[in-house]
């Protein structure tokens, strides 16, 4: 008994059996699809409903959607949003956000702010790469948020559709606030 064990051990050692066992796995995987991917060079496909970096959106004509209503600030559970609103001096009726900050280090990516937004000015994108050496750059200001929005507009729209927040056509206009076009025309005609 003891002899057979010893001889088996001896043959295994001479024939590098363990290495063969290991190589068997390696060779088997040569014919498999890879489980991992080469992250910076290769990227994962992300679903439309993914909650990535927040962004601010514009209407198709380039006008800022945000009316500075502060509802996102009210909805935010981690209190990372700060909106400073003002009257647009050129258009006396209109309210807009003169400053808009999201402290993305505090953000828990819950998406409540997007749900709260009455004009769909906020959306989430598939962008998640904002690691940095300087933590201060993680306080997204209005310019940065619009910049993300401009660059990831398609993703942002997909997010809104995926979360049933925006639908095509007049349906969405019905319950969402827009500055009425007619007021603007009355305003300009009285001036």
């Amino acid at each position, binding site marked *: 008994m003891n002899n057979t064990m010893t001889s088996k051990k001896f043959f295994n050692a001479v024939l590098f059996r363990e290495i063969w066992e290991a190589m068997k796995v390696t060779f088997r995987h040569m014919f498999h699809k890879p489980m991992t991917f080469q992250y910076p060079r290769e990227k994962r496909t992300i679903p439309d409903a993914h909650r990535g970096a927040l962004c601010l959106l514009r209407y198709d004509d380039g006008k800022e959607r945000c*009316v*500075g*209503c*502060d*509802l996102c*600030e*009210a909805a935010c559970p981690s209190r990372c949003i700060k909106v400073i*609103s*003002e*009257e647009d001096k050129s258009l*006396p*009726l*209109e*309210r807009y956000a003169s400053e808009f900050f999201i402290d993305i280090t505090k953000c828990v990516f819950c998406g409540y702010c997007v749900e709260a937004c*009455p*004009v769909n000015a906020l959306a989430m994108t598939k962008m998640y790469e904002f690691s940095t050496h300087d933590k201060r750059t993680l306080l997204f200001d209005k310019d940065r948020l619009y910049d993300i929005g401009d660059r990831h507009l398609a993703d942002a729209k997909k997010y809104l559709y995926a979360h049933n927040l925006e639908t095509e056509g007049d349906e969405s206009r019905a319950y969402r*606030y827009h*500055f*009425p076009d*007619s*007021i603007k025309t*009355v*305003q300009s005609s*009285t001036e």
Partner: protein
Amino acid sequence: MGLKPVTTPDAETVTIELSLDGETVQAKEGVSLYDVIASTGKIVPAMCYHYTFDPFGSCGMCLVIQEGKKAPVRSCTAKATAGMVIRTEGEDLFLARKKGVEKHLSVHPLDCPVCDADGHCELQDMAFQHGVTQLDNAKQKNIPEDTRSLVLDFNMNRCIACGECINICKDVQRIDALQFMKKGGFNQVVAKGDQTLDCEFCGDCLAVCPVGAITNKYSKYAYKPWQLKKTTTTCNYCGDGCQIYIETKDTEVVRVTSPLSWKNKWGDRTDTVNGHDGLCVRGRFGFQYIDSSARLKTPLVKTDSGLQETPWIDALDLAAGRLAYVKAQFGAQAIAGLITARCSNEDLYVFQKFMRHAIGTNHVDSSARYGHINFVRALTHTVGVTRTMNTSEEINKAKAILIVGANITETNPVASLRVKAALSVYKAQTIVVDSAQTNIAKLASHPIMVNPGTEGVYVQGLVKSVIEQDLIDEETTGIYPQALAALKQAANEVSLETVSTLTGVDIDQIHETAKIFAEASRSVIICGEGVLRQFGGYHHMLNLVDLAWLTGKLDRKGCGINTYTEEANEQGALDMGVAPEFLPGQMPFEDTAAREKIAQAWGGALPATGQGSHLMEILDRCRKREIKALYLVGENPLETLPASYDVKGALSHLEVLICQDPFLTETAKLAHVIFPVSTFAEKDGTVTNQEGKVQFLRPALDSLGESVLDWHVMAGIANGLGSPMGYDTTQDIQQEIRKVLPGYYNLGRPSPIEPQLGQYFGKDFDRSVGERYRLPRRTGNQRPFGLRLIQLIYHSGKLSTQASGLMLISPNTKSLRMGPEDMKNLGLNSGDRIRVTSDTGSLEMLVKEDVSLLPGSCAVPEHFNDPPVKDLMSLQVDPSTSVPYFKLVYVSIEKA
């Protein structure tokens, strides 16, 4: 209609019984059904109802089912009658009310995200409560926003035509600046005649607007109600002591709101006799100075290269060192201190303790010296009363009100509403004696226009007339026959003909007003600047006491003499003993027992008697170089007193001038050390209003920059002088005040006053009575126009000129106001340049028409020093109370 306060407050109303949701309820007859329901604690929604005015009945929400009627009835406009059977709850009522909400919402823009009222909107609440989610036939009004007014924006798309703004303006404020107008197919609220809104801008319409139809321009779109931190504190502008909510966001003041709001809509209308909880333009729109960029943030020390920012420790050390030097070198009597009556009671108390205890001098005074002390000294001397004699309720329910020289609607707008209610709701006879056609004179039943500066003469005329017409009250005067005889004899000196020529009022009118005042069952006197700040103020106050005593209105319930103060805490300044003649509690400084009590509390001796000097004497002594060090807390004598008095010269002789102020004033620019201090919005403490209510200041913000509370500086300097005061918090000071003045903190419920007539009328009366019945002689070569320094409703002292909102409403127009008649005679038009010459100087300025001024008089607001009109004034000092009089001067005017 609703609950009309009965015009005779003494009359009893009949009590009736009705059934409410199966319970029997008692109510007064004639009361609105809604009030009855509300009084049981049940809440029936109503958007157009507010307790301060009659129900309007436009919103259609307060529906109830009355047995015997098919359709629901509007409970606000229905009168409660005996035997009614009412149901206030039920599915049918809910649906009927929901229909009402839908009706309003169908023409309401759904612009909640951008509306300032979002989250503080009754329509929003109602839509939520009634579950309105679907709207058929919604349409937009598409009315352009009315942004013409300086203060308020009217967005009539959001208006639900509840009429609350119009009603409060008409029924409570008695201004009537708003109206409904049918425009573009919709009923809209517009300023009278669809003009630009130009009113007193009290902003009560803004407060009661249940939606966002009226918005505040100064904070438009800057906030959402839930973001703001709300602090209840006491307004610091005038002596009314209104409670205000300062609403802040981080470190900025966003807006000021009032307890009056659509949210506080339930109440008893008769309770408004104690105030309607609204504010005036200063309180509501004059908040910008609190976080103004002009505020001082660090201590400044004068060096050769100008004022230098210095750390606190060095500045305190310097101030204490210089004071110690002056005290060692020249004695404690070479140090004096002045403090403004806008400070809190605790600041004032610590200040006088610092001067008397740490320094050892009695040269302390406050800005109550400018007039209020005349009132207090006269009343303490005669009847032993230390403040105004009547509550606002008593003023409201008076039968006759004599207002002498007080432009109350401008100086104390909220307190004046009680007089307005008295004369309109309770139908009081109102006699207004003034030298201009003031707003209250326009409303009064008996406006008496006198020549400038002769209000006191008119009072003497009234006393004489009472004696001549034999309107003397036998009951009260009979107890002191000697005093009556002395008064009659003294009044012999006064001839009504002379009074008539001096004042320019007919003798008949004098007789008529005297009769009204004497014959009314409850008469009150309200006196103001025209008495207290004109030459002879103290004597004229005594004349008023004589008048009240003669007619039996001095110690009877509901009668008395009152004044309204200009600064927030003038009453507190005197109560805290910041005057050389008073110790805390207005005990006489010479009184041995009182001195002992205070010395025991402080653990040290008080300065010797007979040495204290008041404001004018302090400045005189500075000029004579007897006073070497002056400590000014918020006081600005350089910009207050006329140049002829040469304050600058007086201050230039000082070894050390210490100023502490939130702003760099003209006086502070001369100072050696300047300490930055907090405004009222950053303080904790108390202030005493003109009625004697001690009310709390609560900090809404942290002190700006390095500024600290006023008493911190005083305690710091006391530490430096080696006599620490041992206060850590404001509560420590309050503890000490409680010990010295038990019961002073009355939590807004001052104890009723009890006039004591015995001492004065029984013993001291005839000694001095002769002095005050001498009519002034008119000198022949007097200049033709009486120029008065007046107060505007939009401003209060110099403080309000730091509030950008008020400066926008009422900028410095740099013009003299003149009556149209005089302008016509001189050939002047509004906007012309004129030269104004008085005996002390001459300057050029513009002229502006003011229809309220009478021929022979002109006026300039005292709040602005550009051009320096105050320098034209001559200054006279009262021989008894040392009040400086400089509000009136005679000038000649010519076209420049």
